[in-house]
């Protein structure tokens, strides 16, 4: 194993691999450390939806810019990422939700997004299998350029491109400690030896909290188990991702014909609980059939779990932290790491390479939590 590198990235998910690629492309000597295999955490377990409809400006901006990158990523990385833009349909169940939606649509439109509030007839037209009465919808918002990409293909495309540019991706390498001298990083300690470096990017999902604790930085991240299931393949029925913040459900049909989706468990506690539950299977099946009764003969073939790395405001923690120079955060995505990754990693790369900072990095830094009136992202699902 190389003993010295410019930048160490901890975590082999979508963000870690994208960072490795972008930094290596700028001729930075970079090494990525992953304790299992690439995609073994949240990235490989998520629904991999790509949504630009948000309630906070930072998330909306990051997502809109990310979609622009996703749209040309096949070409850039010379690989297929399985991007499909079938839109996101967000159900609105009452007047209060409608008001919030109108406000959000105005914000999103001001950022240049093509999005609109639609009525029941149009919902039915876009997703014919929905039962408007069953799902208790009065309207919806719809953005046609939202969509989905294959998380494995995308991460692999980044990883391969990173390797082509000289990045070293070390799997089955567990970080056991980080050593610093005064306020600068000295080295990263792993089960396979020490690596000298001055810059560490912490992209370890919920485990980012434990990584940061190694140098006494406290991150307000809590792991939250999320469950998801997939059905057998059936003929194409609909294109968009359908979601409801009230019911906590999201589901879409994959290119292969499988229905993939999840639902939040209101009683879920924070912690590393990894078992799939029967409660979820029942709750998801019942709610899904309320939304789309005609799916009643479709068999579920698999269910699994993963973690959201939840922050108090459900927004990511990005950039350098006070007190330790060269220790950067790229975590706390609260369930949205995949869809925001292209732009987030671009901003972080610019910061590392050129020292260029931005309003978004400033607004989403760890420091924001000292302010009691932080703006909370309302649009969290699953």
């Amino acid at each position, binding site marked *: 194993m190389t003993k010295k590198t410019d930048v160490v990235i901890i975590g082999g998910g979508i963000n870690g691999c994208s960072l490795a690629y972008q930094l290596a492309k700028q001729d930075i000597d970079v090494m990525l450390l992953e304790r299992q295999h690439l995609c073994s955490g949240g990235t490989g377990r998520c629904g991999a939806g790509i949504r630009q409809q948000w309630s906070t400006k930072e998330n909306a901006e990051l997502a809109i810019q990310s979609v622009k990158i996703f749209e040309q990523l096949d070409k850039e990385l010379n690989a297929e990422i399985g991007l499909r833009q079938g839109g996101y349909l967000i159900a609105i169940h009452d007047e209060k939700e409608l008001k919030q939606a109108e406000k959000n649509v105005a914000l999103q439109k001001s950022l240049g997004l093509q999005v609109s509030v639609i009525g029941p007839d149009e919902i039915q037209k876009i997703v014919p299998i929905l039962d408007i009465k069953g799902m208790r919808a009065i309207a919806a918002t719809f953005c046609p350029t939202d969509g989905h990409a294959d998380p494995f293909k995308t991460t692999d495309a980044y990883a391969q491109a990173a390797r082509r540019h000289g990045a070293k991706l070390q799997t089955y390498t567990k970080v056991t400690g980080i050593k610093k001298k005064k306020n600068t990083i000295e080295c990263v300690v792993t089960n396979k030896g020490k690596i000298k470096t001055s810059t560490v990017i912490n992209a370890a999902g919920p485990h980012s909290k434990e990584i940061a604790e190694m140098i006494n930085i406290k991150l307000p991240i809590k792991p939250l188990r999320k469950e998801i299931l997939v059905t*057998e*393949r*059936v*003929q*194409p*029925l609909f294109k968009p991702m359908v979601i409801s913040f009230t019911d906590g459900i999201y589901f879409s049909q994959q290119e*292969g*014909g499988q229905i993939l989706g999840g639902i939040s468990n209101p009683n879920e506690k924070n912690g590393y609980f990894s*078992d*799939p*539950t*029967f409660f979820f*299977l029942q709750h998801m099946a019942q709610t899904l*059939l309320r939304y789309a*009764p*005609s*799916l*009643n*003969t*479709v*068999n*579920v073939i698999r*269910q699994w779990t993963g973690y959201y790395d939840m922050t108090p405001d459900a927004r990511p923690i990005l950039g350098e932290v006070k007190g330790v120079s060269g220790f950067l955060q790229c975590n706390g995505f609260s369930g949205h790491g995949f869809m925001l990754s292209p732009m987030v990693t671009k901003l972080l790369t610019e910061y590392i390479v050129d020292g260029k900072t931005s309003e978004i990095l400033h607004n989403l830094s760890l420091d924001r939590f000292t302010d009691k009136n932080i703006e909370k992202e309302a649009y969290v699902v699953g």
Partner: protein
Amino acid sequence: MRITQHPILEYDRRKEVRFTFNGKQMNAFEGESIAAALHANGVMTLSHSLRYDRPRGFFCGIGKCSSCFMTVNHIPNIRTCIVPVQQQMTVTEQEKLGKIPCTPFIPKKKENITREIVVVGGGPAGMCAALAAAEQGASVLLIDENNAPGGQLVKQTHKFFGSTEEKAGTRGIDIAKELLNGLKNKKTIELRTSTTVIGYYENEHMHRVIAVRRLIQGDQLLEISCKKMIVACGAMENLLAFPGNDLPGVYGAGGVQTLMNVYGVKPGDTVVMVGAGNVGLIVSYQLLQARVNVDRVVEAMPRIGGYQVHAAKLRRCGVPICTSSTIKEAFGKNHVEGAIVTKVDDCFQPIPGTEETIPCDTICLAVGLTPSIRILEQAKVRSEYIPEAGGTVALHNPFLETTKNGLYVAGDASGIEEASTAMIEGELAGVSAAISLGYNKNGSEVQQKCKNALQLFRSGPFGRIPKICKEKISSCLACEEGGTQY
């Protein structure tokens, strides 16, 4: 395609049913699976592969592969090899992905069941486990995915070996009948067929499994809680990699047995058998009994793996057994039209120039089995890859209990062996589970008897591999996490 004369078997063909396939009227007999009925009517292609549109036919016959997915009564993705054909049924080949029906939704109420012992799998191990546990006084629920219990035992027309006590000299089908009668007569055993266990979930103090029961009107969910659970869900047929291995006419040996010996349907007219282990030899002889021509048996190993008795029977009937030979390719447009076999060297590499083309319509693969351990894996028992077991198996103690308290494994699921030892293992697991619940009429004696019998079976030359397998399992169990130090 139907077998009209058989030296041993009689088929129940009392009641005829009529169904349609792609709009065409067809006849079948009550109790037949849809796929078997279609085969009897000459329908060999059941589906087409999604990506390359290749025809797919009957392969495993026991609901483990996906080549028989069809749309039945407008519901897609039905495993037609384990669903019985019914009067007025409409069966259609799917246009690639199935189309969901537009029927109104009628929810079926979930059934909650609590039982002392649940046995998953109604083959030889499972039936014996249920009987042994009930014999000691425990109440048992026996679940099987198929339309009828019996597993692979109901397909064995040959006489078993071993001691008289272990039913030596009796045909598998007759042992199965005896066990099935025993199940019927035990009031403390409830049998649920057409029921598939789909999940194991954590629950304090109890095992909790979720199953789906396939009813004519639609499926029903079962939530089952039990104190002890015995997993005896058998094994899956191995596939061999060669060009054309997915053509209709290439069958697993179990699939051929199911077609011939359960439903009385001939798989074809001329067969090339791949594999000269006991399964390959026995099924070849069964094919002869069904008046199907067996061209030859090919075996990649330099010697015959199965019992000489079975090999000699075949040879007397003029079937050559070619060792150091294997199949290289299956060819045919929509169905097997022939096979190319070749000699192999000491490293199992084909020897150029030794290829031979054999006209045939059936290729039967008897190349081993892999234990089915999905439920055990869901329950997070410790498992280990053991080549002699046929794959990854759950570690278990001499009483067949896994590393999870009260969760037992028996039969092929505990490591590939054969039906006689599966029955003994089932009995041992069943009686041990009952004893742990406090039921012990003569349980300790039965345990000892079973352990002795297993030892005897595994002391001969053909028990060598299972013996190594079990030794490795216990040494893995003895060492700490990740114990591969055998």
